């Protein structure tokens, strides 16, 4: 199944997002709240920086020994009664999963939100294969009813207002009555989804961590939908990227402490579950079969690349919540499954840079993402690397290329640059006529259409002021 997401229209989508007052309100409210929560959790955990360094080292260590951990995990998971499958790419992963559903004679398949699932196009593949797919995460349930894509990896329906949810539920949930109250809306979803949990023959989830030394699959949720999805159906399938491994429970513990704090400012999510294998003799519930699909889908290619640190990502969304660009344009503009800084690295790195060339450029390099990443991924550095690649691969448009080429030629020659900048400063000050900023700049419409152009301060060029001793 080919994923139909595309980031080719990033600029247009971003401009449209800026004109949506509802979206702007939702973004502002949510990102402000999540930033405050994370800051509070950070302050309350004096060892956060040390834990972050440890989390980063754990992820580096696993990537350096990924083959060892994959084999160890596989052996232990199989010994515990979980069948492990391997998939080279998204198509193969979807094929294995839909085939397992078919063999289980499934009609209804419940799913727990998994970014890997979205990435490989599993929802579309399940639909195309004719299964009734039921998203159980409340936000994904809303998105499924609306035909929307997730706009945030942790809070996928961030873009929806209560009124919109109310309309969707009135149409989809019997007895089709109008509800305004949020608690009642949740209750309405609870009733509808409860039936599906029991009806489903197969439950599918992702994994937050795969524990190598005991073969456990770790999932974290606040809703507790993973527990019902994984325990009620006869067959349980987990799809997980090969980078999800950790050596042991203690290593998972370090990352668990970082994950919930970074995502939502919580010490732990409400439900953290470690699953090993299918129902055991005497067990009164649990699945008859447990399957796990280990998915490469571009990860091994990244592993040997400069962009490899993005494989450390634990999908907490702290970088997204703290990104001023995301805060303005929201998630849909990114066009992919992943948003914000991590998305601006992952989407071009895993799909095609040509089709998502604008993403690494949609960044002010303010570095807040670097500061809040719980595993210390140098996100802005990776975006710079991608920017260089758009240049080297001739993906930058002609006017920009020519402009930058000219700029480069001038700044490399001080004898040219100094008089040129003197002239420029004088011209800009003339145009500004004493005002601190220019509203319009001849030839610079692309800039001044949406923001002012700062006028140079009095006193001439930087070099002139520096020589006069203004330092």
């Amino acid at each position, binding site marked *: 199944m080919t994923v139909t997401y595309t980031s080719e229209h990033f600029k247009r989508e971003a401009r449209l997002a800026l004109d949506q007052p509802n979206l702007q309100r939702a973004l502002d409210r949510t990102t402000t709240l999540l930033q405050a929560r994370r800051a509070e959790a950070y302050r309350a955990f004096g060892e956060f920086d040390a834990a972050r360094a440890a989390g980063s080292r754990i992820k580096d260590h696993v990537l350096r020994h990924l083959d060892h951990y994959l084999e160890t995990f596989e052996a232990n998971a199989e010994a515990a009664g979980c069948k492990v499958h391997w998939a080279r790419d998204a198509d193969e992963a979807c094929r294995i999963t839909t085939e397992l559903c078919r063999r289980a004679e499934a009609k209804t398949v419940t799913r727990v939100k998994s970014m890997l699932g979205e990435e490989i196009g599993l929802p579309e593949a399940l639909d195309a294969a004719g299964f009734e797919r039921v998203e159980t995460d409340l936000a994904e349930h809303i998105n499924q009813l609306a035909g929307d894509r997730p706009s945030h990896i942790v809070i996928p329906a961030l873009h929806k207002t209560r009124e919109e949810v109310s309309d969707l539920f009135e149409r989809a949930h019997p007895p089709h009555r109008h509800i305004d109250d949020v608690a009642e809306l949740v209750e309405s979803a609870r009733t509808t989804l409860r039936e599906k949990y029991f009806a489903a023959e197969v439950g599918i989830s992702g994994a937050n961590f795969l524990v190598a030394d005991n073969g456990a699959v770790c999932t974290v949720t606040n809703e507790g939908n993973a527990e019902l999805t994984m325990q009620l159906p006869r067959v349980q399938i987990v799809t997980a990227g090969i980078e999800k491994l950790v050596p042991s429970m203690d290593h998972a513990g370090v990352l668990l402490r970082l994950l919930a704090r970074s995502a939502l400012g919580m010490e732990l999510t409400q*439900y953290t579950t470690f699953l*090993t294998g299918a129902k055991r003799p005497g067990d009164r519930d649990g699945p008859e079969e447990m399957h796990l699909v280990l998915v490469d889908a571009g990860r091994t290619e990244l592993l040997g690349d400069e962009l490899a640190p993005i494989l450390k990502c634990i999908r907490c969304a702290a970088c997204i919540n703290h990104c001023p660009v995301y805060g303005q344009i929201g998630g849909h503009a990114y066009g992919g499954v992943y948003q914000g800084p991590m998305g601006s690295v992952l989407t071009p790195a895993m799909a095609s840079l040509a089709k998502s060339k604008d993403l690494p450029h949609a960044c002010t390099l303010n570095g807040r993402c670097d500061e809040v990443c719980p595993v210390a991924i140098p996100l802005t550095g990776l975006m710079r690397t991608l920017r260089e690649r758009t240049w080297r691969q001739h993906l930058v448009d002609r006017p920009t290329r020519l402009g930058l080429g000219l700029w480069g030629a001038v700044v490399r020659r001080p004898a040219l640059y100094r008089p040129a900048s003197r002239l420029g400063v004088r011209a800009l000050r003339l145009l500004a006529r004493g005002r601190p900023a220019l509203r319009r700049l001849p030839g610079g419409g692309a800039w001044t259409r949406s923001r002012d152009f700062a006028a140079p301060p009095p006193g001439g060029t930087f070099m002139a002021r520096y020589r006069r001793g203004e330092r």
Partner: protein
Amino acid sequence: MSARAEVLARVRRALGRERADPDVIRAEADGLVGELAAIRPPVGDHDAVERFIAKAASERVAATVERLAAADDLPDRVAAYLAERGLASRLAAALPPALAGLDWSGLTLADAIDPNEAVALSWAEAAVAETGSLVVASSPAAPVLFNFLALHHLAVVRADDVVAYLEDAWQRFAHAPLPRALGLVTGTSGTADIEGQNIKGAHGPRYLHIFVVDRF
């Protein structure tokens, strides 16, 4: 080439080496979590049970907690919980023999759980002072759903089973195969998916009531 062989070959190609020595890897991995005290929040010198109760009852975890001097009091306290909330005197219960043998004559205990069960009583193998979490483990006597399905989740834990840190919780299971489903329950089934409003009882429990029992 199988997908398995191909993915592993790609990994080794990307890492630019052949198989590494497992003993060296293990030593390096152990070193990464060698000094846990430096990378986890200190639980402090408080009594772990007191700290667990405070955490579990905190605004974030939002459980209600009762400490019982003796297990014999449990049936009465469960009955009182139900009566105070106007709930029927029937509940689904998955209890170890020590608790199943108490005098439950005032209540109807079901050993199977109904899809729309209002109240379920379960046993926690341990509790974590660091986070206010219950540790629930599946076994023939402890089906998983009793922890995740009913609107009211009532759980029993022994005061002696309260541990300080997350690591202490799973350390208890280190000498045998891990239970098939090992869960940390830190509150109730909640969602903030609609306009950020915190709503309890999204799919499973809306209420969590914990009995910490001192003596059996």
